[in-house]
C-alpha cells in the first residue's frame, strides 16, 4: 500500500488547503461490511446504485452475491464529511495555493515570511468531495443503532464536553 502517506506526517507537515473545504462537491458514500483490498475507480453507478431497493425494513442490495441491508446515516450536527486526497509532490504550484483574485489583506499576509510554506518540507492535502450523510450497509442485517460506526459518531458530542474549558471557581 501507499506507505509514503503514512510517513508524511512524521517527516512533513501536511497542509489542508482550506479553500477545498468550501469548494468540495457533494459525494455519495457507501460504507460496506467487507474488505475490498484496493483503492481505485469502480463502476459503482453502473453495478451497485441501480440494484439498491427500498425494502420494508430499510435498503437492500447485493454485492458479490451476498445480501446487504442498509440505512442512511447523517453526519452529526455541526460536522461536515470530507473526502481528502494527498497531492502528489510535484502537483504543488504557487498559484494553486491561493484563491484567484484574493483580497488585499490576503496579499499582505503573503508578504510575511512564509513560515508554513517550506516547500521541501511540506505536503498538501485537499478535500475532493464533501458529504452530509452516507449509507451504512450490514451483512444481511440492518446495521441499526448498535452498529459500531454509528456509535462512533456520538464521539464529537462527548468530546465537546470533555474538552470544554472548565468552569472558573
Amino acid at each position, binding site marked *: 500500500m501507499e506507505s509514503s502517506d503514512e510517513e508524511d506526517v512524521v517527516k512533513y507537515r501536511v497542509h489542508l488547503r*482550506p*479553500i477545498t473545504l468550501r469548494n468540495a462537491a457533494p459525494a455519495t458514500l457507501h460504507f460496506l461490511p467487507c474488505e*475490498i483490498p484496493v*483503492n*481505485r475507480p469502480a463502476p459503482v453507478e453502473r453495478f451497485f446504485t441501480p440494484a439498491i431497493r427500498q425494502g420494508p425494513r430499510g435498503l437492500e442490495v447485493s454485492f458479490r452475491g451476498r445480501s446487504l441491508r442498509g440505512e442512511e446515516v447523517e453526519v452529526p450536527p455541526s*460536522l461536515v464529511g470530507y473526502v481528502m486526497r494527498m497531492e502528489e509532490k510535484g502537483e504543488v504550484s504557487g498559484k494553486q495555493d491561493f484563491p484567484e483574485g484574493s483580497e488585499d489583506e490576503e496579499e499582505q499576509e503573503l508578504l510575511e515570511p512564509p513560515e508554513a510554506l517550506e516547500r521541501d518540507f511540506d505536503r498538501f492535502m485537499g478535500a475532493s*468531495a464533501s458529504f452530509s450523510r452516507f449509507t451504512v450497509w450490514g451483512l444481511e442485517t440492518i446495521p441499526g443503532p448498535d452498529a459500531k460506526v454509528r456509535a462512533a459518531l456520538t464521539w464529537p458530542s462527548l*468530546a465537546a464536553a470533555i474538552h470544554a474549558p472548565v468552569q472558573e471557581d
Partner: protein
Amino acid sequence: MAGRGDCGDGAGARQHVFLLPEYLKDASKKMKSGLMFVKLVNPCLGEGALYLFNMCPQQLFEIKVFKEKHHSWFINQSVQSGGLLHLATPMDPLFLLLYYLQKADKEGKFQPLDQVVVDDVFPDCILLLKLPELEKLLQHVTEEKVNPEIDKKKYYKYSKEKTLKWLEKKVNQTMAALKTNHINVGARVQSSAFFSSHQVSSDKEEDYICYAHGLISDYIPKELSDDLAKHLKLPEPSASMPNPPTKKVKLSDEPVEAKEDYTKFNTKDLKTEKKNSKMTAAQKALAKVDKSGMKSGSTKTEKEQVTADPHKAWLLLMSLKTLPEGSGFFFCVLENHQMPKDVHIC
C-alpha cells in the same frame, strides 16, 4: 487475487474520509493561516499521535479514527479499502501542555514556557505556545512567577494540587455529558440480547464517576490518573484487567425499550450478576447461542419466508442449576437454525 494488483494503477490514490467541524470551512480563508496535520505527543501514552492545527484562530483538534476489520468505502465512482473514518474534534490543549509541565517538573524549578514545551521527537509542539489565552489556561495546573526586574516574562511550575482540582472539574463535566448523552456506563454488558433492557436505569453514580475518570485518563499519564483516582476517592480497581469488549455490546445511547419483557423475572439477579466479571457456564452457553443463532432469524428475506418451512424453533429451557440462584428461566427461540451445541435441553 492473481496477476493484478492495485500497484501501478495511477488512479489508485488513497482517499481519506474525515468528519470536520463545520466552522473550519469558514474559519480559514487564507492559506497561510490554514490548517495542518501535525504529529504531537499523545499525553497518555507518550507516543506520537496525529492532530489537526488551525492557525487562525489557533486551535487544536484531536483525531480519532474508526477502525474495524472488514470495511471499505464506495466513494462516488471509486473504492477505498480499509473503511477508515476520521473524526477531528476540538481538544483542550492543556492536556498536552500538562504533559510537558509534568515532565519539566522533575527539575523542580520555575521555568518559562518556551523552555518547558520542547520536544526533539515532536518539534511541532512549539505550535502550542501560540495558542490564545494560554496564561489563563496554565493557571489551572501551575504556580506562576513574574520577574519584574529582568523582563515581564512569566515562569511556571507544575502544581499537582491545582491539576487535580482541574481534572476533577473535567471529570464532573464529563459525567454530566455521559448522563445527557445516555452513555451506558454500567459494568460490562455480556450480551445485548439478554442483558440490555434494564441496563440504562441501573447505572449508578459511582459507575459514572469511574467511567468519566477513565475517559479523562486517556489524556493524562498513568501516574496522574492513579493520583486522580485517589483524589476522587474511587474504589481500588479490581485486580483483573478489564476484558476486551465482547463482540456485541449494547451501544445505543438511547434508552432501550425491551421488546418483550422476559427480564422482569430476573432483573434483580442480573444486576448482581453484572458485578461478576466471570461468566457462569450458563452465560457462556447463552453467549454461544447468541453468536451462533440469534441473528439468523432476521437474515432471510420476507419473501423467502413465505415458502420456507414452518419455522423450526428450539425452545431452550436453561436448567436452573446452571444459572445464578433464583434466576428463573431463560427462553431462547432460534428460528430455522440447528440446535446449538453445548446447550442443555430439558
